[in-house]
């Protein structure tokens, strides 16, 4: 048996896992929709139609129109770009800074480790929304704010996961054997620690991605996220709020878009964890 058959085995295990499969389908469709929105949407999101405003779903507008007469399906399609971009970049920030920090703290131990933990405490005291409030107070609102605020909050999350997993690996005998082979902390971290914590990080990545989607929606709902005219799911909900008695469909579809996206990512994360972590799988 070689590496590629091991990989195949994992893949077939993954496809047999219902959570993973459903999650994968939902997230792939979502990614496809976002990609499609660059080249085609049913209507332009800048197309205002005052006469055809607040229309419920119909053959012409599958999901109806909003208070400016814009096509809600097109808005949702374009809005997905914003959600995905913000959540993705925040995960990249969180991973990019958090993982090295966590691995470094685990490798050094002692004061370095203690300092990292205290830094984590500090950042955890600022929920993403509070950071966003502060950043907005300084720089004014925008999508970049949302990315920074969510990204900062992700740093300690990844640092903690990476540190915890790495700490449990360091006393392992294969690490001692590597040290007896003259390998230093940095080389051991890259060769032995990182590959063995990667699974956990991927799973945490999907979880943070879905939390990022929720957080971005919340921020743009209160006006701290991306600004008009760029459509975003959160702001669509904000605009739907005042129209709730006239056009409940406005609130329904934008919200469903968020729920389905987050659900898909969570299922994907659950499935990945089951497939990648034999210990957890056994306990289920």
């Amino acid at each position: 048996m070689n590496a590629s058959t091991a990989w195949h085995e994992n893949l077939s295990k993954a496809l047999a896992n219902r959570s993973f499969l459903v999650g994968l389908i939902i997230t792939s469709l979502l990614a496809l929709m976002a990609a499609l929105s660059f080249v085609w949407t049913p209507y332009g999101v800048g197309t205002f139609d005052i006469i055809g405003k607040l229309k419920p779903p119909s053959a012409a507008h599958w999901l109806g129109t909003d208070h400016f007469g814009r096509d809600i399906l097109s808005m949702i399609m374009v809005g997905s770009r914003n959600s995905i971009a913000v959540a993705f970049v925040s995960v990249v920030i969180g991973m990019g800074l958090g993982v090295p920090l966590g691995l470094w703290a685990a490798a050094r131990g002692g004061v370095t480790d203690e300092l990292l933990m205290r830094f984590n405490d500090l950042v955890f005291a600022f929920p993403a929304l509070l950071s966003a409030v502060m950043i907005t107070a300084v720089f004014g609102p925008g999508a970049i704010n949302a990315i920074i605020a969510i990204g900062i909050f992700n740093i300690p999350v990844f640092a903690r996961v990476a540190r915890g997993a790495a700490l449990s690996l360091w006393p392992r005998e294969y690490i001692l054997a590597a040290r007896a082979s003259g390998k230093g902390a940095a080389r051991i971290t890259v060769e032995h620690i990182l590959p063995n914590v990667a699974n956990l990080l991927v799973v945490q990545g999907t979880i943070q991605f879905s939390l990022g989607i929720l957080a971005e929606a919340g921020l743009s709902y209160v006006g701290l996220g991306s600004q008009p005219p760029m459509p975003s799911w959160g702001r669509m909900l904000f605009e739907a709020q005042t129209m709730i008695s006239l056009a409940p469909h406005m609130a329904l579809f934008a919200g469903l878009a968020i729920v389905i996206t987050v659900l898909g990512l969570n299922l994907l994360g659950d499935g990945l964890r089951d497939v990648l972590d034999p210990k957890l799988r056994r306990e289920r």
Partner: protein
Amino acid sequence: MLSYASKRILIGIVTLLAASILVFAVLEVVPGDPARLMLGMNATEDAVRTLQEQMGLNQPLVVRYLRWLGGLLTGDLGRSYTYSVPVISLIIERVAVSLPLALISLILSTAIAIPVGLFSAARRGTFCDTVTMGVAQVGVAIPNFWFALLLVYVFAVTLRLVPAGGFPGWNTGLWPGLKSLILPSVALALPQAAILARVTRSALLDVLGEDYIRTARAKGLTHRKVLYGHALRNALIPVLTILGLQFAFLLAGTIIIENVFYLPGLGRLVFQAITQRDLIVVEGVVMVLVAAVIFVNLLVDLSYAIIDPRLRSRS
């Protein structure tokens, strides 16, 4: 004795100090001169300079921070220039809405989640378990402010059972006040309860795989007795961790939910303050919220020690 508890308290205080420096520093770099902002564009240079001196703006940064910190400790958070009242009295007034909201939601979500988690764990793999966890999986994905909108549409707009928003004030009596907090608390609590129920279940299942559960079963304890008598208390440790983290999310959630229901809480206050560039208010509210998060996490850390004797004896 430098016990677990005193170490946690010390860490809490240090974190709070670091947070205050951070908040102060971030808002220090804000472009614009507070004195000029307060007086408006037409003020004379002299008037601005006088006010700057009064506010101590021309003193060195460290002195200004220490004075601000001293103010924090004595409850003097400065004066809001839009409301022309002390920030502390604004905050106290608004906390009277936000705190009950957060507490009711926290209690509600815990009261729902733990029994549901126990129910599901006791029936692992059955149809009941699958359905319950399926519902919870969807619940986790629901943004609370959207859920709030749906609740408003159903219970306020369509059924007209409760007000769609607004807050009559506690001086109109307890019930009218509580009534206007029902929908907001439910909107906040249910998605949190879904998360917590999942965590409770999986923590219980983890514990049920431990060796000491087998020892307890070998004593002749029934499944039920083992679940309540041995598993639950051990499973509470991860549940508490999540509960502590959730409080931060709940606080953030209240800020958003207050906007859905037009509740005059801290959240509304901070957004108005941002729009009006009333930074001293922003500073005050953020500090209060951060202090609340740190305090709750300290409580969580301390309750670990109550649950787990290993922490108590570790010096």
